[in-house]
């Protein structure tokens, strides 16, 4: 600080304004002996002029002078130096109170009656210079603070815009989603992201950083880019949370972490998958039961704490029925305080569900109850909540925007092929679909067709794995709670898988309009009697038949070979 302060190091300069030359000489002698640098002026006009040029530290001002008197000269000097303190001492022969009052009114800081007593004059001058120095120090520090504040505000604004751009590329604003995100400071410590999957359905992430403000905003950048990027490429939520955990563990300090709940809403299988690390229980409100039917508690540590080796990516999967409502909220909701310091709490939240008479109003009811409870009390934490109503049709109709794809320059249609073989140990722990789709789209572009391609690959691979290798019975899905049983059984068999393999062959041939993509999937299972089943497959309308029906509408040709363990489809694009 002292380095930047240009004050006390230099010799103070004093300006003497007096038309009486002997007077000036006496003062000059006194001051120079004291070590001051002295400037002189004959009258008021000259005094103002010298002041403007030389910037003295203090002025001794006679009152009666030709051209301009001391009062006016003082007023002008004071007007010139609004952001610094320049002491002006009037030199006066009179001691009448009216004259002295005029000295003060014109901006004088002190006055001194002739004849001068040297010691007194010296004492007054050095006292006023000390005040000037103090004033300048304060002024300097205030300017510094001002500049810091301005710079900080500017950076905050910039970061806020950046943050908003990142967070709002999501697809909140869907007809079956209601949400609130009320940050207590400029940046929220909470984040809420939602993105449609290429295979249909939706991924949602609700997160709550330790603290809020800048640290939270910085952490939000990698979280949202991993979430959106990996969802668009077809990765599962288990893979997404693993990747986010790795990233956050790497970049965040030990005491900063992200409590997060990530869900996968899947209209194909009527399932809800949840990975919850540190977010209050996810609640499912049954439309039929008119009450909370399930509660999925946090099973894991928040993201950014566990090392890669100890990270637990295990996801809980449950069946979900039409119009069931899913609620996820940050602890800011239950910890919202009223003016008496009492917390809203879990019980009051659950009571809203009990009192409610129209489930369409549940979200509003919670919000209103919360506002009523807070009663204008100060918000303590970020409050974030989301409601998702499960509607199979609306979820399937949610359009997947392939942003990366649509921006890429058109690639010429060309000839290529590749194949991939997956053995049992890999099938148990690796999902090849994101890699496959990414490779195919990288090679050919397939503008705007990523979602369709994803469906084709996903149906073919899932059939080969579930029925060919794992021997799962799809009629199990026909029963009311069959879906959950089916997926539980699938998980068990997958983790115990010892034998079997799947081969995938992909080839592309260009033609005049676009090209023909051939996909062949072969598994080592026992196959099925496809000639016998062909008709029933085509007319099948149950859940389990949906896959083949869907393929029929997308692909030009579906052909079974071998003993039903090989399937080949042709996809025409233009």
């Amino acid at each position, binding site marked *: 600080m002292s380095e930047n302060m240009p004050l006390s190091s230099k010799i103070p300069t004093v300006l003497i304004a007096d038309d009486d030359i002997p007077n000036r000489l006496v003062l000059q002698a006194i001051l120079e002996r004291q070590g001051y640098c002295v400037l002189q002026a004959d009258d008021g006009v000259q005094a103002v002029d010298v002041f403007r040029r030389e910037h003295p530290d203090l002025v001794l001002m006679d009152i009666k002078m030709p051209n301009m008197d001391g009062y006016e000269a003082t007023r002008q000097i004071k007007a010139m130096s609004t952001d610094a303190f320049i002491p002006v001492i009037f030199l006066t022969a009179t001691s009448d109170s009216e004259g002295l009052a005029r000295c003060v009114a014109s901006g004088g800081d002190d006055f001194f009656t002739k004849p001068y007593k040297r010691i007194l004059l010296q004492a007054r001058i050095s006292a006023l210079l000390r005040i000037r120095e103090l004033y300048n120090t304060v002024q300097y520090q205030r300017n510094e603070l001002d500049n810091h504040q301005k710079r900080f505000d500017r950076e905050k604004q910039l970061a806020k815009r950046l943050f908003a751009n990142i967070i709002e590329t999501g697809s909140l604003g869907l007809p079956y989603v209601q949400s609130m995100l009320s940050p207590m400071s400029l940046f929220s410590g909470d984040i809420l992201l939602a993105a449609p999957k290429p295979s249909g359905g939706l991924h949602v992430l609700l997160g*709550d950083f*330790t*603290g809020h403000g800048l640290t939270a905003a910085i952490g939000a950048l990698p979280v949202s880019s991993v979430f959106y990027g990996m969802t668009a490429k077809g990765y599962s939520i288990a893979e997404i949370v693993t990747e986010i955990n790795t990233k956050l563990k790497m970049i965040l300090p*030990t*005491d*900063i*972490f992200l*409590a997060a709940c990530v869900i996968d809403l899947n209209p194909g299988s009527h399932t809800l998958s949840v990975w919850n*690390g*540190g*977010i*209050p229980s996810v609640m499912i409100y049954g439309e039929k039961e008119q009450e909370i039917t399930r509660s999925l508690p*946090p*099973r*894991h*540590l*928040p993201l950014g*704490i566990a090392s890669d080796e100890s990270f637990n990516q295990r996801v809980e999967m449950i069946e979900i029925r039409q119009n069931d409502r899913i609620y996820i909220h940050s*602890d800011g909701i239950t910890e919202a305080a009223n003016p008496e310091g009492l917390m809203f709490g879990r019980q009051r939240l659950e009571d809203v569900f009990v009192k409610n008479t129209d489930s369409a109003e549940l979200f509003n009811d919670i919000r209103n109850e919360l506002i009523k409870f807070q009663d204008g009390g100060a918000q303590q934490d970020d409050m974030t909540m989301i409601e998702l109503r499960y509607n199979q049709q609306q979820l399937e109709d949610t359009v997947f925007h392939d942003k990366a794809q649509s921006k890429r320059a058109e690639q010429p249609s060309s000839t290529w092929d590749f194949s991939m073989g997956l053995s049992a140990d890999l099938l148990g722990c690796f999902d090849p679909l994101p890699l496959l789709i990414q490779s195919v789209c990288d090679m050919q572009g397939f503008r705007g067709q990523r979602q369709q391609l994803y469906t084709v690959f996903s149906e073919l691979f899932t059939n080969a794995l579930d029925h060919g290798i794992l021997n799962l019975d799809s009629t199990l899905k026909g029963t009311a709670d069959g879906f959950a049983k089916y997926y539980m059984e699938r998980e068990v068999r997958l983790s115990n898988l010892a034998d079997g393999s799947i081969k995938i062959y992909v080839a592309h041939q260009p033609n005049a309009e676009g090209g023909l993509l051939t996909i062949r999937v072969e598994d080592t299972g026992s196959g099925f009697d496809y000639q016998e089943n062909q008709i029933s497959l085509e007319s099948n309308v149950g859940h389990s038949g949906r896959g083949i029906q869907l393929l029929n509408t997308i692909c030009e040709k579906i052909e079974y070979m071998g003993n039903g363990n090989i399937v080949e489809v042709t996809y025409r694009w233009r």
Partner: protein
Amino acid sequence: MSVTSEVSTDDNTITIKISGRFDFAEQNEFRDCYYDTSPGENTQFIIDMSGANYMDSSALGMLLMMREYLGGNAANISLINCSPDIKNILTVANFQSLFTMD
């Protein structure tokens, strides 16, 4: 002062007592409680929460800092006498997998 520590040399434990609000304001006091100790291999740290009536997520972060400083998985830290509210905050974050809790 709302964070105090007492060292019992005979049975190799260091007890840190928290009272009032356990949040970011106590950061330095809390850190000093374990920074200056020279724990042996079997030293047990006990955080006595009997006097604490509030805990926020930055206090969770402070516990993580302590755990890391004392050797991560090798650290021996117990949280005792937690009120139901505080226990709830700790279990929502699944901290029972990192700290011993009664």
